């Protein structure tokens, strides 16, 4: 499977919410510039795992991890790692589109502005670039200073992706990015994921098995906090080696 370099890696990772062990001894490596999908029934730990990859769980009381998560070989839970720097490298898109209640422009440049970038020309250029990347530019270029909340759900989600791209991360985490969208918007996002993997390492959590099959190169199946099986998407979907994977994929439970 070593076609590409390894971008992200978890080694013997355990995660706890208080006394509850949500992730059990996860070891997995994610290829650079490829799409890795996490599948599994609700509560299996796939979203928890995704959120440990950019430390979004830090603010949850009682959450802690054991083991290592390595980004380009460096442990992201190391004391010397600054979490804001990490999140510039590892962007995230959420389940429900969550544009800020501000203008479209303000949404896209938010990540740059909080880094202290004020140059207007630079910000406008960056906004156009990321909106073009998400194929949103033509749709919104005349209403950049209108509220982002007036956009449709699918447009909002592409705006959220553009917002994440604007700070030039190398990894993008997506937590069920299309579960709140209609089929046409979903197709657009999937197309986008396919294009983005030329430049970015993408990790996507999905409940939609067909989606995992369509967009991902590698698939990981989680169950009850454990990583049951991980491999090429084709292999996982056609000849899984574990019975539970087989049963989940064929819809016998989950």
């Amino acid at each position, binding site marked *: 499977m070593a076609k590409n370099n390894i971008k992200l890696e978890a080694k013997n990772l355990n995660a706890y919410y208080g006394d509850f062990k949500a992730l059990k001894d996860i070891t997995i490596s994610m290829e650079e510039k490829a799409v890795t999908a996490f599948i599994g029934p609700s509560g299996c730990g796939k979203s928890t795992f995704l959120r440990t990859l950019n430390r979004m769980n830090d603010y949850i009381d009682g959450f802690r991890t054991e083991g290592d998560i390595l980004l380009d070989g460096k442990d992201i839970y190391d004391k010397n790692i600054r979490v804001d720097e990490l*999140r510039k490298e590892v*962007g995230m898109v*959420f389940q429900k589109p969550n*544009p*800020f209640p501000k203008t479209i422009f303000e949404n896209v440049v938010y990540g740059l502005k909080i880094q202290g970038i004020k140059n207007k020309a630079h910000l406008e250029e960056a906004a156009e670039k990321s909106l073009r990347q998400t194929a949103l530019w033509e749709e919104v270029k005349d209403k950049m200073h209108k509220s982002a909340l007036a956009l449709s759900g699918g447009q909002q989600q592409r705006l959220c992706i553009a917002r994440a791209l604007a700070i030039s991360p190398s990894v993008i985490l997506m937590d069920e990015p299309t579960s709140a969208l209609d089929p046409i918007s979903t197709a657009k996002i999937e197309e986008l994921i396919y294009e983005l993997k030329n430049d970015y390492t993408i990790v996507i959590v999905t409940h939609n098995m067909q989606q995992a099959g369509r967009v991902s190169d590698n698939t990981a199946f989680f169950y009850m906090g454990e990583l049951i099986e991980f491999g090429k998407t084709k292999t996982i979907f056609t000849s899984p080696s574990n019975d539970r994977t087989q049963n989940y994929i064929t819809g016998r439970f989950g």
Partner: protein
Amino acid sequence: MTNSDKNRLKDKAFQVFGIFCTLIGLVVLAVFLIDILIKGLGRIDWEFLTSLPSRRAARAGILTAWAGTLWILVLTTIIAFPLGVSAGVYLEEYARKNRLSNFLEINISNLAGVPSIIYGLLGMEIFVRQMGLGGSLLSGALTLSLLILPIIIVTTREAIKAVPGSIRDGSYALGASKWQTVWNQVLPASFGGILTGIILALSRAVGEAAPLIVIGALAYVPFIPSSPLDEFTVLPIQIFNWTSRPQEAFLINAAAAIIMLLFITFLLNGIAVYLRNKQQKKIKW
């Protein structure tokens, strides 16, 4: 009579009783307002608003009283606004949910129920005596700030709580620090609610007489305060003073002053309602 007839009768009876209960409060308030308006409205003119207090009712005005009320309003806002909002933000966004923060929360809610005269006594001991500020505007504003802080903290927290977590997630995920998230996302989104709470708290402070009397605000102040360390009076104290005199003419003065005080209070409440509606229209989650 069948059972269903009985039920219908009971239903009807309760409706009539309910209307009666609702009206009692309104009717009493209306009678009071009409009485005040009849007595006092004729007394309000430019001279009344711009005259200094006097022993003779016909020459007495409320200039010093409303000037004092305005001073108190501004000073209390300057003191209570940053303190209350910061405390609310800290408790809601920063404090870990443990025993200590639980204890703080319960006590802040309790403080909101403490009678205002107790705050007056506290203010007298701390600000007037210990800090040596005397019966000044500053002592009064500090005392009233203590009084309304719990209200501001509680409403700030409610307003912040109403901002969805997904907005915070979005901000953090783009590399924002906690402070950047609070400043750029949480506060702008909840500002309408916070402002509404502050204005309602202020309109309560404007009507207080008891704590200010305790710290030594006077009814007779023959000058407009020019600095926070000056002595002062406020409308409620002037009203209290006038209503305790036997002469009819002073009662009419009191009625006129009450109209002015009600006007200020209603104005503040009106602004609060306006801001809240505007905010609700602006942001739809």
